[in-house]
């Protein structure tokens, strides 16, 4: 049943120009970063004569592309997730889901998965784009796979937050703005205390946990951070919808 909800969500995304435009713009953004990374690589590397200063192309270009992902996603995801529940609330289509034999958990998880699968297309594209360097260089696929995994986790957390804010209101625009503000805060939190790496502020910041992926490290504490984040907001969304049923 979760799959059916996700399918419906994907269908709706592709039935309107919105989905296509966002996907195209994001792809353009990442493509640009990739090209920029490749160009800069030769500039920088020709300047560094000592071998210790040299860096592999995968990590150099990869950091350029994946490192910017959290900011690009901060802008793009609120626009995509704003409709998930608030639009249904506004056009009064929620009873259609509530009166079908589907549990609230299935509805919310289905919608969440639909969104992650949609953005998964992007992650796959980025992976293919970066793999194309393999034609003339010997690239580190492990780094790419690790980063793709990290990016999926980042997208998942952003979507979970987005779906929660979407469930709070019947105005998609309000959902988008509040999601954006919340995501922006999550991303820049760490920068306030950059001088003190051990500060707890840095630990709850999302960018700090994503950065280790862009360095090529998969740290279980980062993975757990993202998974907890996703589970928390999905649970909150389910509870929000359940309170609709209870309080009317």
């Amino acid at each position, binding site marked *: *049943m979760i799959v*059916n909800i996700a399918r419906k969500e994907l269908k*709706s995304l592709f*039935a309107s120009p919105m989905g296509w435009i966002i996907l195209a713009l994001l792809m353009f953004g990442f493509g640009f970063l990739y090209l920029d990374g490749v160009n800069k690589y030769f500039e920088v590397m020709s300047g560094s004569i000592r071998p210790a200063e040299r860096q592999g192309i995968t990590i150099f270009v990869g950091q350029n592309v994946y490192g910017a992902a959290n900011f690009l996603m901060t802008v793009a995801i609120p626009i995509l997730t704003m409709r998930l529940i608030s639009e249904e609330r506004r056009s009064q289509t929620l009873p259609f889901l509530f*009166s079908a034999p*589907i549990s609230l958990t299935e509805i919310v998880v289905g919608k969440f998965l639909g969104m992650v699968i949609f953005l998964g297309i992007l992650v796959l594209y980025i992976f293919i784009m970066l793999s194309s360097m393999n034609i003339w260089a010997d690239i580190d696929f492990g780094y790419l796979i690790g980063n793709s995994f990290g990016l999926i986790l980042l997208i998942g957390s952003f979507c979970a937050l987005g779906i929660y804010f979407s469930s709070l209101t019947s105005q998609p625009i309000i959902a988008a703005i509040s999601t954006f503000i919340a995501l922006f805060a999550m991303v820049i939190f760490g920068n306030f205390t950059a001088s003190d790496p051990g500060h707890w502020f840095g630990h709850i910041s999302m960018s700090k946990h994503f950065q280790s992926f862009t360095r090529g490290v998969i740290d279980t504490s980062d993975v757990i951070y993202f998974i907890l984040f996703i589970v928390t907001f999905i649970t909150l969304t389910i509870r929000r919808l359940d309170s609709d049923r209870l309080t*009317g």
Partner: protein
Amino acid sequence: MAVSTLQAINLSRNFGANYAVSDVSFSLEKGEVLGFLGPNGAGKSTTMRMLTGNLAPSDGSVKICGIDMVNEPKKAKEMIGYLPEMRPLYKELTVDEFLTIAARFHKVEPSKISKSVEVAKDKCGLGHMSKRLIENLSNGYQQRVGIAQAIIHEPQIVILDEPTVGLDPIQIREIRNLIKEIGKKHSVILSTHILPEVEMVCDRVQIIDKGSLVFNGSIEELKKQRRGNKLLVGFTKIPTKKELIDIPGITQVDAIDNTMCRIHFKEKYLPAEEIVALAVKNKWGLFHIAPDITSLEDIFVQLTQIKK
């Protein structure tokens, strides 16, 4: 003995201190069309939302074919098709796409989905609209799509909340015929505030006012209340009350204006003939004589005011 498919037991729902529905109990027999009648804000929609599991009752329970809605919502919801007052349609999809999704959500077997979509479209007269976007359909057709999604999984019970609101007379007629058609195979609960509609399509009527049931019976019972022992008579030269009361059987005469009066008579008497004979003999100038039927509206008003 007919099998009851839906049971509402002491259903109550309050919003804060306000009771929208209080202590409503009824049951629905198999293959029955039940009309749910009430003025605006009487608690019709609230009751329907509780029956379909969209709203948790504050007290009481709903049983669908013996399955409790609160304890086993998934199983119970499988047997219900629901069309809320605001039709829940994904307008960016085509009719076919939407109905396919509805079938999937209601657990129609994958191999049977396309067939059940065809059947539902056929029943609702949507055959030639398959590839149109729901957004571009007229009001009446959108309503048909709404009904189609409610019957697509062949549910035991179909619950329709004000299905004819906002439609033109021709569409209303078509939708009513459709409901009658559905009523042959499924049990139907239909809410409305249009009285003739109930008379036309329903087997049984329930009147709800201020959250509680005030009438529960067959259409015949409602009609009985309607046809009293009264005649509406018009004379150009109206006779005195005494002259009329002297006719055997007549108990009371109420003058309505200078020419019309309402004549009440006893059960089993039919004084029409004598009135006519007297009128001709005394040259009262009779121009109108007809049984005085209380309009359904009046009964409705009477019933909803008894409580006050």
